[in-house]
Structure formats: structure tokens, C-alpha cells
């Protein structure tokens, strides 16, 4: 797995919100089939990195290559069409759409995605509540719907922004199992997390983000050898 060519390569990535610079030359890569995790404190720039990859930042420079193709400068829907999908931090489940409509919202871009049957066997709750309004679901169910929504499209790189945030421990465990199942299907995952315990249960590689730069990186075995390695970057 570690010898595989990078599916996503980010180098010299800078991004701005208006006049204030949020990213100062971020560089990292994500290999095919792995779970890579961006860890770091609030405001470090983790979400901005995902937004830059997705084409959602008003101003970003540097280079992002997905499958050798440059993505900076493309519209978000063009980036999505290349096979990158985002599960945003705020989940963005649409209130005026039913669960079913939320699930079918993103257009299919390639084969190889989960079928509806597979999605419903992974998330039985969603099947039961398919006609309910999207935001009548519980927080955990909304998170599952936000993940389920991007499994269908055939996107190869799934970017999950803090999927464990604000959820009960039992639900967090469920989400971790789900991500494991998704990885087993050969999907590549770029995760943003502050919950190190959650991240450790699924990640192959870690990048530490601080003040808009990557300041450290390590692998699953590094963290297994020294469990405190990541904690120092998170705890204040």
C-alpha cells in the first residue's frame, strides 16, 4: 500500500479569506486506498485545506494534483466530476429535501460506487426514515446520511471533515466501523479529525496542521509505538 503512487498531491498550497492568509504553503500527499488524517487544533487550517481541494476557496494558489490532473482553478462541480467528494463539517443535510432526496442529490460520476442496497445495509436507519425530512434525523443519522450521500457517486477520494464531532461515543464507534468498511471497498479517504482516539482506530497516516502549515507527519506504526506523539499537538 505504501508503495502505491499518490492519488492526491498537494504542494505549496496557499489560501486566503479576503485579506487574511489561512494557508502558508501546505504540502502532503494521499496514496490510493489509504486513510490519511489531518490533525490539528481549531483554526489550524484543516477545513480550509479540504475547501481548497474542492475548489470552494475564493483565492488559493499552489498546486493540487488528483490522478495527475491539476484541480486548482476548477469549479467545485468540475472537481467533483474528477472523483473527489466532500462530506462537510456542518454536514449540510438539506431541510427541504427528504432523506431519499438528500441521498440522490449528488450526480453519479463513475461506476464503482455503493449501490442503494449496499448503502441501506450499511445504514439501516436511513432506509427506515427515507421519506422523513432531512433535518428531522438525529445528529448521528445526519452524519451517516452525509457520508452515505457521497458513497453512491463513484468518487474515489472521500474527504470527511470531522465526522465524529458532537456525536455520542457509541455513534462515533459506529462511524469508525463504517469508515473501515468504506476503506475495505478500496476507497481512499482524507479525514480531518481532532478526536485522536477516533482517528487512531482508522488512520494509516497522519499530517499535523498548525497555523496553516503541515508541521509534522507520521504513520500508523509511529503512533502505535508512541501513543502520545499526536496528543501534544492537540492538547493545549
Amino acid at each position, binding site marked *: 500500500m505504501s508503495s502505491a503512487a499518490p492519488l492526491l498531491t498537494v504542494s505549496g498550497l496557499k489560501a486566503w479569506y479576503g485579506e487574511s492568509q489561512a494557508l502558508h504553503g501546505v504540502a502532503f500527499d494521499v496514496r490510493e486506498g489509504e486513510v490519511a488524517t489531518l490533525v490539528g487544533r481549531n483554526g489550524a487550517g484543516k477545513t480550509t485545506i479540504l475547501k481548497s481541494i474542492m475548489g470552494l476557496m475564493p483565492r488559493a494558489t499552489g498546486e493540487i494534483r488528483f490522478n495527475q490532473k491539476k484541480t486548482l482553478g476548477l469549479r467545485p*462541480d468540475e472537481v467533483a466530476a474528477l472523483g473527489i467528494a466532500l462530506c462537510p463539517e456542518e454536514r449540510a443535510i438539506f431541510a427541504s429535501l427528504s432523506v431519499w432526496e438528500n441521498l440522490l*442529490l449528488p450526480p453519479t*460520476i463513475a461506476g464503482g460506487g455503493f449501490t442503494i442496497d449496499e448503502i441501506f445495509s450499511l445504514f439501516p436507519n436511513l432506509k427506515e426514515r427515507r421519506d422523513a425530512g432531512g433535518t428531522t434525523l438525529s445528529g448521528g443519522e445526519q452524519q451517516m446520511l452525509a457520508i452515505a450521500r457521497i458513497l453512491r457517486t463513484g468518487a474515489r477520494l472521500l474527504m470527511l471533515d470531522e465526522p465524529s464531532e458532537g456525536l455520542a461515543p457509541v455513534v462515533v464507534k459506529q462511524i469508525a466501523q463504517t469508515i473501515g468498511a468504506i476503506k475495505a471497498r478500496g476507497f481512499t479517504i482524507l479525514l480531518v479529525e481532532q478526536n485522536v482516539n477516533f482517528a487512531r482506530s482508522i488512520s494509516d497516516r497522519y499530517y499535523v496542521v498548525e497555523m496553516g502549515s503541515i508541521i509534522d507527519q507520521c504513520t500508523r506504526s509511529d503512533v502505535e509505538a508512541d501513543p502520545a506523539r499526536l496528543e501534544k499537538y492537540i492538547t493545549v
Partner: protein
Amino acid sequence: MTIFGISVVLLLSQLLLGLINGAFYAVLSLGLSVIFGTLGIINFAHGALFMMGAFIAWMLLEWLGIGYWPAIVLSPLIVGAFALVLEQVLIRRLYKLDHVYAFLLTFGVAMMIESLFQNAFGSAGKPYAVPPSLRGALDLDFMFLPYYRLWIVVASLVLCVVTWFAIERTSLGAKLRAATENAPIVQALGVNVPRMMTLTYAGGAVLAAIAGVLAAPIYSVSPHMGTDLVIVVFAVVVIGGMGSIKGSVIAGFGLGIIEGITRVVYPESSSTVIFLVMAIVLLVRPRGLFGRTS
């Protein structure tokens, strides 16, 4: 026969007239509402698009001998194509700006279109005959109901139902509703939102143009036929609730009928009653009768 000293026949005929005006209010406010809900644009050019619909039907008949039925399809398509270009060239530059810019631009565009038509055709109304297949009237004993007026009510109800279905029950409609809530995320999920917005603007223009063709035989076709109407229609949209389809339809027909009743009961206020209702609704429910509360 009278009730409280009011002739029932007079009341019913004014109710019918109100229903017809209401039909136009409903179709026009529907288009405005869909455009506002999705694009966040207050489209003051709506009255001009309505007028273009009527005028193009008139031109097709006068210049090419193309009758009412082909025109009710062709004219909205032509206006829709015009709106497509208008959105691409001008309107789309406004999405990230304050609403007031959209108001200024579309108001300016409306004045330009209306002045161009006035320059070319003069401001006098042009007659447009009722199509032969809809001449005549239904005898209801107490009054005659012209078939054409019945057609207007039926056609606008069909337009309202079709629009409601397209937005509430189709996958394209689901994308539109989602984009109303959070357009950037919808685009990040892979939907070509810019193209969808272009089509939405054109769709609203098509609705306005169909209303224009429907209106051609009963109002005279003139460059300013949309100007007064659009002011009332904006009041209707505000009363119904900005962006609400149900609100547009109910407020459109309802206010047409209220206007009709007022014309019998207290004719002096028939042209202001809608604005009175608007003021009351804004005091009680600032987001309109069916506006989303967020």
C-alpha cells in the same frame, strides 16, 4: 337578487374578473418567486418579459401569420432564449453582490426593453384577437362566461401545478431546493449550479412570457402592459412569502378575488386594497404568509 344591497350578478362577475387577474398574478409571482428563491435576484425585468411574450405573439401573427396556438409555444421559447443570454451576460455577475444591485440592473434592463418597444411600435395598444377556437361564451343563466377567460384560469392553474410538481417532486427540483439552502455545497457535491441558475432564470422568463401570450387577447398589447402589473405582482410575492411557490399561487388567486370583491363593495379602494393587505401581512408576518422562518 341582492345580498346586503349588492347585486349577486355584479358580485359574481367581479369575482370572475378577480379570478382572471388572480391567474396572472399567480403565474407572474410564481416565476418571480422561483427566480428569487434560487438566484436571490429580485427580477424587476419580469414585467418586461411578460410584455415581450405578448408582443412576440402579436408580431408572429402580424408579420408571419402564425396564430395563437403555435405562438403560445414559440413566443415563450423566444423570450426564454433571450433570458438565457441576459442571465449569461448580465444577471450572473450579481449573485455575489447585494440585492440592491440586482434591483438596479433588472429595473434598468426593464426600462431599456420597454423603451425599445415603445420606440419601434409606439405606446398605443395593439389589438390581438381571441383565437377562433375559444370565441363564444358559456351561458351560466346569471351571466355569460367567455370561453377565453375560462381558458386563462385553467391554463394558469395547470402552469402552477406543473411548476409545483417540477420543483417539489423531481430530482431537478430537489437540486433547486438544495441550492436555495446552500449553493456552494450543492456545487461541491457535483451539481453544475451555474447552469442550473441560468435555466431557472430562463424558466421564470418562460412563465412570464406564457402569461403575456395569455393576456394578449384580453389586455391590449402595449410596451407598458407589464409595468403596472409587476408592481402589484411584487406585492403578491411579498404577501405570499418570498420564494414560496404555494404562497405565490394562493396569494395570487386570493388577492385577485379580494380585488374583485372590493370593486363591488368599495370601488374607490380596489386599486389599493392589495397594498393594504401587504401592509397588514408585513406587520403580522414579516416573512409573508408562507415564507420560510429561519
